[in-house]
């Protein structure tokens, strides 16, 4: 095995304005995201050798949108990690030497579904405990983790709500600095704590919005990237771990951590040569589909000790001026969650932070940035951890 480290460069990225994009179709969003990435990389569509696109039945849309007759295009799906996994497969394609320049893109039109969350029809083939855990709304899954976390580490309901509210307030603040975020307004601690419940103990501000948007990355080998721009960003490590229903089938599963996150982070750190994430990471993007998701993720990726994340949240450790700023773009909470594209959107913020082009959100002296995505449900999460760093 050979680490992916320093063998793949990002030469351009783009995202759409995220929001209720009734005026734009799926193809329009793909075009918007890809156009920005192509402009960023200063290349033309004809320079692209292969494409990876997120979402079911999306394969043929990329060539159609970019007028790329006959380049190879693959479609990939990995629930809410789709965008990050499309990026991963594109990175392998570059590292394999088969292609010089590869595009990874995805767009989601979640609002068209007519639901504000994900419609969970349930899977009729599941039985017993598996059916009970699996067939529920997404907020309910994460409510289970919040409840168990509180119990397991002895936090009171008030302490938990305070912690989660601090995360929501932080992400809303960061969102005000991001012109592409769906929500660009501050909220107060009271707003968050007193919001209506969605799935106890999670309230309205603990849940992100499923929304429309697209994102795109253009990858190349470093020797190709060098000819294109000076400030390309390097992939340092990529880890992916997918569940095998343990969380749905095993009594031992403890609901205070996501084993998929831990395994993915371990792989990515191993490749990047990172031994002490707290000391070595400058910036982190976590998959905050729910505030409790971000809370548990701190511990899973090793930037907070087990059970201690609420203390760090209280100290402001993950805020813009804290030790490790997390979700500087506003996270899923404020930029929204266009499902297939979200992983690429997370990477987009990491890319700009490493490149030093994050504008008012720029964290000082960024070296390594971690972008995390988590798709699926209890027992079948697909977690991706990607670490980006500067060239040379």
């Amino acid at each position, binding site marked *: *095995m*050979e680490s*992916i480290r320093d*063998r793949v460069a990002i030469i351009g990225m783009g995202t759409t304005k995220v929001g209720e994009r009734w005026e734009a*179709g799926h*193809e329009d969003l793909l075009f918007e995201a890809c156009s920005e990435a192509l402009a960023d990389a200063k290349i033309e569509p004809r320079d692209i050798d*292969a494409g990876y696109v997120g*979402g*079911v*039945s*999306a*394969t*043929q849309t*990329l*060539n*159609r949108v*970019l*007028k*790329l*007759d*006959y*380049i*190879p*295009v*693959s*479609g*990939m*799906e*990995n*629930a809410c*990690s*789709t965008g990050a996994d499309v990026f*991963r*497969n594109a*990175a*392998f*394609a*570059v*590292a*394999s*030497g*088969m292609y010089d320049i590869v595009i990874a893109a995805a767009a989601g039109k979640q609002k068209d579904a007519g639901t504000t969350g994900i419609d969970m029809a349930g899977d009729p*083939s599941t039985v017993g405990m598996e059916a009970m855990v699996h067939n529920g709304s997404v907020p309910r899954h994460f409510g289970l983790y919040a409840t168990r976390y509180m119990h397991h580490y002895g936090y009171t309901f008030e302490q938990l709500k305070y912690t989660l509210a601090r995360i929501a307030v932080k992400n809303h603040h960061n969102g005000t600095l991001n012109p592409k975020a769906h929500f660009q307004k501050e909220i107060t601690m009271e707003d968050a704590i007193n919001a209506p419940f969605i799935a106890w103990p999670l309230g309205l501000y603990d849940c992100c919005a499923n929304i429309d948007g697209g994102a795109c990355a253009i990858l190349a080998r470093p020797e190709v990237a060098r000819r294109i721009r000076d400030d390309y960003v390097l992939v340092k490590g*990529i*880890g*992916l*771990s*997918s*569940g*095998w*229903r343990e969380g749905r089938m095993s009594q031992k599963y403890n609901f205070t951590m996501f*084993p*998929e996150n831990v*395994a993915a982070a371990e792989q990515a750190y191993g490749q990047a040569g990172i031994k002490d994430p707290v000391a070595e990471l400058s910036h982190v993007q976590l998959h905050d589909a729910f505030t409790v998701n971000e809370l548990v993720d701190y511990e899973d990726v090793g930037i907070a000790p087990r059970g201690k994340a609420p203390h760090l949240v209280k100290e402001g450790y993950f805020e813009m001026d804290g030790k490790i700023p997390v979700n500087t773009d506003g996270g899923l909470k404020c930029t929204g969650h266009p499902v297939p594209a979200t992983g690429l959107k997370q990477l987009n913020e990491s890319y700009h932070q490493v490149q030093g082009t994050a504008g008012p959100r720029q964290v000082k002296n960024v070296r390594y940035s971690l972008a995390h995505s988590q*798709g*699926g*449900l209890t*027992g*079948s999460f*697909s977690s991706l951890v990607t670490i980006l760093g500067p060239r040379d």
Partner: protein
Amino acid sequence: MNGKVAIVGMGCSVAGVRSQCSQEDLLVEAGVAAIDAAGITSADIEASWFGCTSVSANHALLNFSLKLGYTAMTKVSNAGATGADALRAAYVAVASGAYDIVLAAGVEKPTDGGYSDFAEGDPLSMGSSAVGADAVVGEFRPPVHSALYLTRYANAFAVPPERLRSALTKLVTRSRRAGARNPKAGFRTPVREDEVTSSPLSVAPLTVLDCSQALDGAAAAIVCSVATAKRLRRRYIVVEGLGVASGGLEGRVKQSYDYTSIPETRIAAERAYAMAGITDPAQEIGHAQIFDLTTAAELLAYEDLGLAPRGKAVEAVLNGDFEPEGRIPTNTDGGLLSNGYQAGAAGLRQLYEAYLQLTDRAGERQIPDLRRSVVHTVGGAVGSFTALVQVVGRPQ
């Protein structure tokens, strides 16, 4: 990538109306056979690519069925080429050096949908945003697409209807004879020429027996580097070439598109042959697995793959070139005509026959002294096909 990536074990389920089995059962049937053939355990698999068009990654179908623990799994979706594209993603990952041993697997249970063809509007529907010629062509059923090409082809090359019919009939009878010799085929009964010509018309000039049917099935392949394959000491095959091309809708929006050739297949084949160092495919390839969604699709593919000269496919078929004892035995497992169509597993199932042939395990279907096979898979519809062409061979 040429010569660096190996397939060290494959498994394949029996095709058919597998109402008594779940998708998990079919994955176990194919996956365990592949793992055993490779001489590994499921704990040795570091990552997987999973072809299936009917479930989300959410269901953890593959990791659960084969007890893959918390390893990486990506679901691949590329219409009818889904299984082949899962294989390609696995090849690419191994070639990149990211993993040593990975799995490509696919499953589909289309008969659960109650259709013998694709479910209406899915997965080929181009959606409500298609307009004009795009919508008209895009919304057709797959046999209609095939028939459009066939009609145009016969006209362009002045093939008389009877001669065209004879060639198509010969393909059906040959494939169904092969299926009868394949214990894993879905249809194991040979058909007579008169049964083909007298079966009901599907889309003129294609009869029902010219078209493949959606059947349930799964297939799996263990992919690794050639160095690892040598270490495992099992019979393996080597990926010599891999070409992919996806259409950008040209066939639906350009008047100049001529419907006598599928550009995606032609371009994918050029890429695969270039990688494999093949300059004369008709001479250098000894066996072909062609995506015969219909006999018309197979007929055109002979030319697009360079196995028959342009305009001469009918002649080559009638000459017996693609019969078991011919120049390039084709679809020796019975093809899709005998094995049915499973989007998630399609390309994998086709490769399975090449794997058996090249590891001398094809039994009574064995082609003597075979060195190299070409495997061709197509997904999508006119103008937006994705074609994958794999060239696989014996280790040097």
